[in-house]
């Protein structure tokens, strides 16, 4: 039976469907209310919101 680690499976699936996102100190929202704050900011500055949904596995 094939027993691959996740990293190898990702390599095989490749093509960006499930990419592991490395974290390097970017502004990250995990506290409650951050998303709502971002929406309020978008409203105040009359800008669109770009949401990056990631996991760090």
């Amino acid at each position, binding site marked *: *039976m*094939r*027993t*691959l*680690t996740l990293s*190898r499976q990702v390599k095989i699936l*490749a*093509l*960006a*469907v*499930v*990419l*592991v*996102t*490395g*974290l*390097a*100190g*970017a*502004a*990250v*929202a*995990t*506290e*409650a*209310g*951050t*998303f709502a704050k*971002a*929406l*309020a*900011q*978008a*409203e105040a*500055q*009359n*800008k*669109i*919101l*770009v*949401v*990056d*949904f*990631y*996991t*760090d*596995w």
Partner: protein
Amino acid sequence: MFARAVNENETIKSVLDDVILVQIDCEKGEGPEIAKKYKVRGYPTFLTTNAQGEVTGGLLGYPGPDKWTDWVKTENTDQRTVAEKKTAFEAGATKELACSLATHASVAYDFAGAVKYYQTARDLDPDNAAQYSEEILTFMYYGSRGGDFTLDQIEAEAKVVTSAPGATADTHVMVTQMLGGLAKQNGQPERVIPFLKKALEATAGNEEMAEARLQLEIGEALLITKDADKAFALKKQTMDEGWQENAEQLNEFAWWCFENDVNLAQAEEMALKAVELADDDGQRANILDTAAEICNARGNCDEAIARIKQAIALDPDKSYFKDQLARFEKAKADKDS
């Protein structure tokens, strides 16, 4: 990849003043709830929304800084919601609407929808046909897993992509990888051969593509020259350092030999060594299954049965091993009769 690029890449930074970027860890804090609300399925997924949180666009996967930035610019130019864009598209399709709706469709894994929108974009913008064709092929490939597209359809699109005048070596490699996997799954591995030949030509002498080239040469040895020893030697070169002392990698190599019917005697030795090196009973049972498959392929039915029984003893809850035992016992009965 994106998290690092967002801090370092000048192209990405150039667009960030024009939008509000928020990054949601989908496993922490409020992340799971927001990801569920927006029906996020794959990571990373990018969505654009208006200030009311209504979705205006989407993108599955991080396509690199240039394409990502272009996508943000496109979505920033037309801030209508996806529902409004769909209505507008029905009334009068444009390539911009088609592209926006195509990338958004992929977020929900609606790959057939993404292909349809990109086909419209290609019809409307024939000067950039090659670029749309690559997107169409990629989404057909994704969709093939869910049965949206057949190998015939994907092969036809792959011909379009690889016969475009500007097709790069990267494109040839990508197409060969896609078709190689699909053709094998369909039990017709030889259907990749024309693409493999083109990819070998396109990458000849290109040292920057040495890794991809090695994979192509393995394909060549397996499918074209049918030189199992050469394929085995090339496969060895792809293994990480220390693989001979690593249970998982030994198992991977042994399984590769089994799948490709290459050097099964050595494959069995590798699997048995991996059994000894395994970290825990679960892993050991999986590797015993590899060993059992190889024994069965070599016609050693008794040994295959003994190995899979060992696997069942180590991991009795796994029904797959019991199915395997039944299969090997049937093979033995057929052989004896």
